[in-house]
């Protein structure tokens, strides 16, 4: 492949080829966020109202649970992260996305496959592997598409202007390398030639941790590493910390695979290694936190929606890192594992750290690409406020409920019906939090839809004219 001289970043980005695929991937993913949250909300309601819609097989609890996780992880987080990651590679490399047309088409295929897949989960049932619930054939297509998109990411990186690489690029590259490895391995060992016995659970756990810690987290960190210094107008505290944080993150995160199998029917060494890695993740969490926290001036925080989301994300990142390290050791997992507590940690990770990091990028990038500001100024405030309130209720209810559930379960004298009965109130609170959170996300959907409408209107008039004016002179030009 010949390598043309890198073109500088577009002055008027609304015209540039980077715009369309990025807008499609990020904007479209918000529909998945709402769809996933809708399914989650119904599932959460059914945790304490089991008779709700009970006669419909396709919305039975187990299917809703799997479908909502799939819609959120593969629909929202992955696509938003990928769109943003590609933009970041283009922006930091002073170039444009490689093969934007193919990226756009791959995005279309991704969405079509995922729509079929989520419908498949509801109609046919989930695969049973929590990290990969989609029907087998669709997993193949999705793996091909995501691998292709990652390769195009490398092509974008290869087009970059000469010069030292920056932390944002490292993290995006780590994600683009990790996704194909995890996707292809899980496709082969869980779907095409399923492994025997508990090997399935080991690989499922490894794949699940990989998707969170080596695919979504690096994309989120890439966004934070770019936008916090960029919008805040101040450089990172220490380039050395950035390097140490990056390599330590990639190394330790890749060994946490069996951390949710404590006490499970797997060889003990896997669990021990994973626990050690989960605790040692504190090292990169410390380096990354030290580099990101407090560098943006407070005044900038008041001006920029994106920066406020980035701040929420950075805080959640530190909290979830410490929480994971504290609750990973065997003695803690024996009580807290298999309860609602891991649900709280997962929600804080996804909706507190990854989500806001991606939304920071979304609020910063979309106006640049669309060539105009978001029309409603109140909407991002409502979005952030309801995100914080909803997430707070969700995480506290799952966390406290799971904590109490764990201690009750650890005491063999407490009957199971009693344990379940005491959990009820926390499950109800969780539904409330989720409802507030989901309502908050409608704000960004409405704002984006309004922006899209404003962008399309100027094109709408000439297009309408094509149909209304019969004379070729009117339409010809």
């Amino acid at each position, binding site marked *: 492949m010949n390598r043309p001289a890198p073109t500088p970043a577009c002055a008027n980005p609304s015209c540039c080829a980077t715009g369309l695929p990025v807008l499609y991937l990020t904007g479209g993913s918000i529909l998945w966020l709402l769809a996933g949250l809708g399914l989650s909300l119904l599932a959460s309601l059914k945790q304490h109202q089991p008779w709700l819609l009970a006669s419909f097989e396709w919305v039975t609890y187990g299917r809703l649970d799997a479908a909502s996780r799939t819609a959120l992880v593969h629909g929202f987080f992955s696509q938003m992260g990928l769109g943003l990651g590609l933009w970041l590679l283009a922006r930091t490399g002073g170039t444009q996305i490689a093969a934007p047309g193919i990226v756009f088409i791959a995005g279309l295929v991704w969405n079509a496959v995922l729509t079929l897949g989520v419908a498949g989960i509801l109609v046919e049932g989930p695969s049973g592997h929590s990290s990969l619930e989609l029907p087998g054939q669709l997993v193949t297509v999705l793996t091909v598409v995501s691998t292709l998109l990652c390769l195009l990411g490398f092509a974008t990186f290869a087009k970059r202007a000469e010069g030292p690489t920056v932390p944002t690029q490292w993290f995006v590259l780590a994600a683009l390398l990790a996704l194909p490895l995890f996707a292809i391995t899980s496709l082969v060992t869980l779907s095409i030639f399923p492994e025997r016995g508990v090997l399935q659970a080991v690989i499922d756990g490894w794949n699940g941790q990989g998707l969170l810690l080596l695919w979504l987290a690096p994309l989120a960190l890439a966004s934070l590493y770019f936008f916090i210094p960029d919008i805040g107008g101040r450089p990172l505290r220490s380039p050395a910390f950035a390097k140490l944080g990056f390599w330590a993150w990639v190394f330790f995160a*890749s060994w946490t695979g069996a951390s949710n199998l404590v006490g499970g029917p797997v060889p003990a060494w896997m669990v021990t290694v994973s626990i050690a890695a989960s605790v040692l993740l504190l090292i990169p969490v410390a380096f990354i936190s030290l580099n990101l926290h407090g560098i943006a001036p407070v005044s900038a925080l008041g001006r920029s929606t994106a920066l406020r989301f980035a701040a929420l994300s950075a805080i959640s990142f530190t909290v979830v890192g410490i929480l994971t390290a504290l609750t990973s050791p065997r003695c803690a997992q024996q009580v807290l594992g298999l309860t609602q507590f891991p649900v709280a940690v997962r929600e804080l990770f996804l909706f507190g750290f990854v989500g806001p990091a991606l939304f920071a990028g979304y609020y910063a990038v979309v106006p640049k690409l669309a060539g105009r500001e978001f029309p409603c100024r109140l909407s991002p405030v409502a979005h952030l406020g309801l995100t914080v309130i909803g997430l707070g209720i969700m995480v506290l209810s799952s966390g406290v409920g799971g904590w109490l559930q764990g201690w009750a379960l650890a005491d063999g004298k407490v009957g199971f019906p009693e344990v379940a009965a005491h959990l009820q109130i926390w499950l109800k609170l969780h539904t409330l939090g989720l409802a507030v959170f989901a309502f908050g996300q409608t704000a960004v959907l409405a704002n984006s839809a309004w922006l899209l409408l404003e962008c399309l209107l100027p094109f709408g008039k000439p297009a309408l004219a094509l149909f209304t004016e019969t004379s070729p002179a009117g339409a010809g030009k």
Partner: protein
Amino acid sequence: MNHGPVLFLGLVTTLVASWTGFVALPHRQLGGLQPDISTNAAGAIVAYPAARSGEAAQGAEVYRSLGCVACHTQQVRPENGGGDIARGWAKRRTVARDHLFDSTVLLGSSRLGPDLANYGERLGTNSFPLVRLYDPPSAATNSTCAPVPFLFEQRPIRSSGPSPEALVLKGTAAPPVGSEVVPMLRARQLAAYLRSLGTSVELPEALLPLVEEANAPK
């Protein structure tokens, strides 16, 4: 300076190491696992675990497709690691060999419902109460288990008399007079699967407690 190649090689090495640790090595360690052959009390040679019967194997697919794993684990943790055994869920911890013939291994990660690894053994000699699937609260106090009425058929009682399979239902769950609720194929398959769940066989890597052996009632 441009770090592209260093970055790329470093990342590939790290990821491949992780792949080796969690895919290749476990495969090497567990991929060749075989059933345990032993002689039972009657002197017959038995293999554990054995593949499930046809109906139970189909039931496993029903269990998977309804997403039961969202609330039910199938992993009993060791005695010193939680209250599972004290609660009477099983006599011993589950080990890798217990899942050797599961077509999809459903260890689960949440206990909104009780653990089912040894559920069939817990039932003893009773048959599985199908009403648990149709109307969970009527079989277990305060149960929030997702009911699956779509695996049952409500039909008029036939002239030949009520079906022997008809559920005994009370209160609001009871069908109108002259009707009965009978399990369809998938409900029976699921029941056969749940009945088949058991981990009470002793394995070299998971011994049964000695006390239990001495007072074994049956």
